[in-house]
């Protein structure tokens, strides 16, 4: 299945802003995160088609997955 992955802020470094990815049916967000060499604790926001998603959520064909890093400084 095809899924669009959008990355934001530091997640773009050495990766991409937007990429169409061919993923096996049943792929979880967590697996995409791992494929991108990101760790779970770096994740700030997960959006799937503009709605908040979870790491253990299953992706569906045509989904747009957006990942933002955690920001907490002051």
């Amino acid at each position: 299945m095809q899924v669009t992955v959008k990355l934001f802020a530091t997640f773009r470094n050495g990766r991409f802003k937007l990429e169409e990815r061919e993923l096996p049916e049943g792929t979880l967000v967590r697996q995409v995160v791992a494929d991108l060499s990101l760790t779970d604790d770096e994740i700030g926001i997960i959006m799937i088609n503009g709605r908040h998603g979870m790491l253990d959520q299953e992706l569906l064909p045509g989904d747009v997955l957006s990942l933002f890093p955690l920001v907490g400084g002051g």
Partner: protein
Amino acid sequence: MNEALTFLEEWSREGMLPWAAHCAAVKHFGLSHAAVERLALQNGLFPARYQRNRMMIDVHEQLRLFSSGVAVIGCGGLGGYVIEELARLGVGHLVAVDPDVFEEHNLNRQILATPNNLGLAKVEAARQRVEQINPAVTVTAVQDAFGLANGRELLAGVEVAVDALDSISYRLELAEVTGAVGIPMVHGAIGGWYGHVATQFPGEETVQGIYRHWVAGKGIEQQLGNPAFTPAVIASIEAAEVCKILLGKGELLRNRKLSIDLLEMEVHEIPYDQPVKLVRAA
């Protein structure tokens, strides 16, 4: 007070009270700067120092700002700018909370940090700065960490709390306490070129939503640090939100988060669910 008011009225020009007359009244009548400002505003005299506010903020609104209290939790990168802006705006009471003293690595961005005040408590620097820029503003300086144990006490008597913290766990505690005491919280966070702002009213859980995936530790700021401009941008948006909350005007960043990327110059709005209102069946 009648004599003082007559004095202020005599010295005012076109409804505006010059700073020199304000100071003369302080000296002549033995009043505090705050007392003179209150007397002026309550009687429709616009302190001339706020004259460039006047087309956005009328004398009644300026009085409302003067009569308001805001707690600024954290006096580092974000908090320094927030305090500077709220003091210039004319918010009458600021509670500045921070356990730390200035260190050399603060100098690249924290507006209150100077080579001369390294080692000085951040809240004391905040108090001194406000005294310099607007002596009518009262600062309660608390050199302590904000937490669940002292939170209610620190927020007593204030209308809004500003999150200028550098720790996600303390932020979540601030969200919990502001919800419990029933005041809005303006949340801001930064890391490198990136930052975000959101405003949360009691009963809303935007901040908890923003950090729903957080387990422990810090965000990208730990690797990136923070430059001079990111705190200024995010703190200024926070100050604008505080102003609008106090005056009850404009559109707030409620149930949404504004994420700003200063490297790519992108702004993203992330929606957060409004709390579900329970509707009782008839």
